[in-house]
């Protein structure tokens, strides 16, 4: 994520654009603030726009699906550890055709939580944010500050299991070891049942059901989502009974219980698929700790079912790893 990785990335992109790659999905900086967004570059003169810093947060997997649908050629994509895991999982689920993708893997030391950054700096004054070693260099209009990364790091990256991409065509940055650690989930599990209920109802009461978490997640791609279908598979010819009897599990009543229904249902669909990229928590305007729900699910998938994520056979298909008892928790 430091300067020379960025230089190598630019050279790599220049080469790729000369070869068979039609476009590359890369990070570029917004004009008015240091936040980085994903853009598609097609020609070599756009190479200068590419950035790579601890602010390159978003997961390009969903954009990749979109571009593959709209273009015919090969597509390059810059992917950190969790992003490449997402792309690999989507390949297993048949949403991405591996031959048409050139993955530039970036070994990721952890990204900055933008919300923490703007509590310390005014966004319009920040010129450049770069990483050297494990301290962050923030160049602002009037001075330059050095802050240790773990002061600004996005909390989810502390529990990162795959900082170095597994699935890539070329890899930049030295290899890093991930670790599997569910200490924050165990903290929550120690609380009593009442405390946990009050904690979660207190958090989920803030939800305004804007569906940013679902729309940001690379694995929430069903158009007929049970909770808020983005498109109904109806045609002018579909009979009225079918449309009338369409199941409506959830209206637009926004209260703690209905929000809980929505989030539980959304999360449980990610069993064994979630790669921990944190897009859902970053997208949530109300700062709800959504990652904790997903990580609890990942913990159960590993401990109760003994399924190691990233296996080639998706979790749903593994019917041979059922626990004997109904549930081991019983707490």
């Amino acid at each position, binding site marked *: 994520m430091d300067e020379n990785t960025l230089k190598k990335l630019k050279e790599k992109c220049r080469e790729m654009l000369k070869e068979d790659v039609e476009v590359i999905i890369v990070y570029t900086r*917004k004009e008015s*603030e240091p936040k980085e967004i994903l853009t598609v570059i097609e020609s070599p003169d756009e190479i200068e726009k590419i950035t790579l810093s601890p602010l390159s947060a978003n997961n390009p997997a969903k954009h990749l699906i979109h571009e593959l649908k709209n273009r015919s050629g090969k597509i390059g994509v810059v992917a950190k550890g969790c992003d490449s895991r997402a792309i690999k999982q989507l390949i297993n689920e048949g949403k991405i055709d591996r031959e048409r993708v050139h993955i530039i893997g970036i070994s990721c030391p952890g990204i900055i939580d933008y*919300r923490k950054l703007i509590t310390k700096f005014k966004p*319009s004054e920040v010129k450049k944010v770069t990483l050297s070693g494990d301290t962050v260099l923030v160049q602002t209009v009037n001075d330059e500050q050095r802050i240790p990364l773990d002061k600004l790091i996005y909390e989810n990256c502390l529990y990162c299991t795959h900082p170095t991409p597994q699935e890539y065509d070329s890899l930049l940055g030295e290899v890093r070891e991930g670790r599997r650690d569910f200490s924050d989930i165990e903290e929550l599990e120690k609380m009593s049942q009442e405390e946990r209920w009050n904690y979660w109802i207190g958090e989920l009461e803030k939800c305004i059901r804007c569906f*940013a978490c679902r729309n940001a997640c690379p694995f929430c791609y069903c158009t007929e989502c049970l909770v*808020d279908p983005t498109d109904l598979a109806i045609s002018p010819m579909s009979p009225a009974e079918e449309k009338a009897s369409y199941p409506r599990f959830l209206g637009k009543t926004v209260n703690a219980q209905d929000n809980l229904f929505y989030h539980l249902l959304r999360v449980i669909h990610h069993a064994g698929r979630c790669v921990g990229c944190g897009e859902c928590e970053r997208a949530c*305007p109300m700062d709800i700790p959504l990652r904790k729900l997903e990580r609890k699910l990942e913990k159960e998938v590993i401990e109760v079912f003994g399924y190691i994520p990233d296996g080639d056979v998706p979790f749903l298909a593994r019917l041979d790893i059922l626990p004997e008892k109904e549930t081991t928790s019983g707490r």
Partner: protein
Amino acid sequence: MDNKIKAMIYDGNFLRDVAEKLLEKGYRVIAPIKSGNYFIFREIDNPERISLNFINTKKSAKEFLFPQNEGLIRYREWIEEILLDSKKRAIIGIRPCDAKAITLLDEVFLKGFKDPYYEARRKNTIIIGYACNETGDYCFCSSLGLSPHETEGMDILVTNLGDRNYLEVITDKGDEIIGLFDVKEVTDEDGKRKHELERKAVESTTRKIVSDMKDVLVNNFNSDYWRKVAFNCIGCGTCTFLCPTCFCFDMLDEGEKEGIRYRAWDSCQFPLYTLESSSHNPRREKWQRLRNRFYDKFLYTVESKGKVFCVGCGRCISDCPAGVDITEVMNGLLKEVSE
């Protein structure tokens, strides 16, 4: 300065004291409190919980006049009850841009067909504003003809001069309330100080937008620019739900035999918003929906209501997960047109 507005000085923290007084008089007081690392309006029962060191709250106070869920009719075989809510309320500590947004909502709900539900709440709500001495990084109210010390839409505007408060009373409702407090005359030194604060706030605004985009938008409806702008957008409802001037709603029935017909916030970014039962959807693509949001704010509402429906609060910029920025989009369109 509108001549009707009376200015006066109050020693001490007026917002906290007025909250206490109004609670005693049986008002439901709604004020900003700190929750997590942002601020939000909540109904409070003791004035200590008010905290005022914020640029703006996460959600505007719109939800107390036009709630996210509002019961209209409770029914069994036929109508059981019409659920009007006319409890006396006071919204305290609202920023000038959100107060202006409320006057825009009045344009929608009180003009032409009077919306009885909105009117019942609006008539019984006192709005006491809190001027901005420093604009945030995402604010651009000054480029929309608004000032950080704007008084439109408020009963009383409070400006913090440090040790004392500079009050501006705009409506008779404000007069009644001021009557309960002992206030002092304004010295011209206070007046100078207030204008100084206002000027400093306007200067510190970094973001700009051109408010009259009408003809640029009309000629560029089919340009490819809108597809590029929508590349990153994920089609969620965050910008519309946080926006203080968005008023679209959906009406649903909950409960087959007996239940409630309620209306809930809806977003033009959701595809089902315009999907017809014949499966025809006038805005099927994500970029058409995003384009519609910009056209609604800067063209359609100008055509139908004569007002730009944006108050420059910047919430849709700061909280957009995909980094779509209304000022960059509009200025980008102007730049692209000029090339």
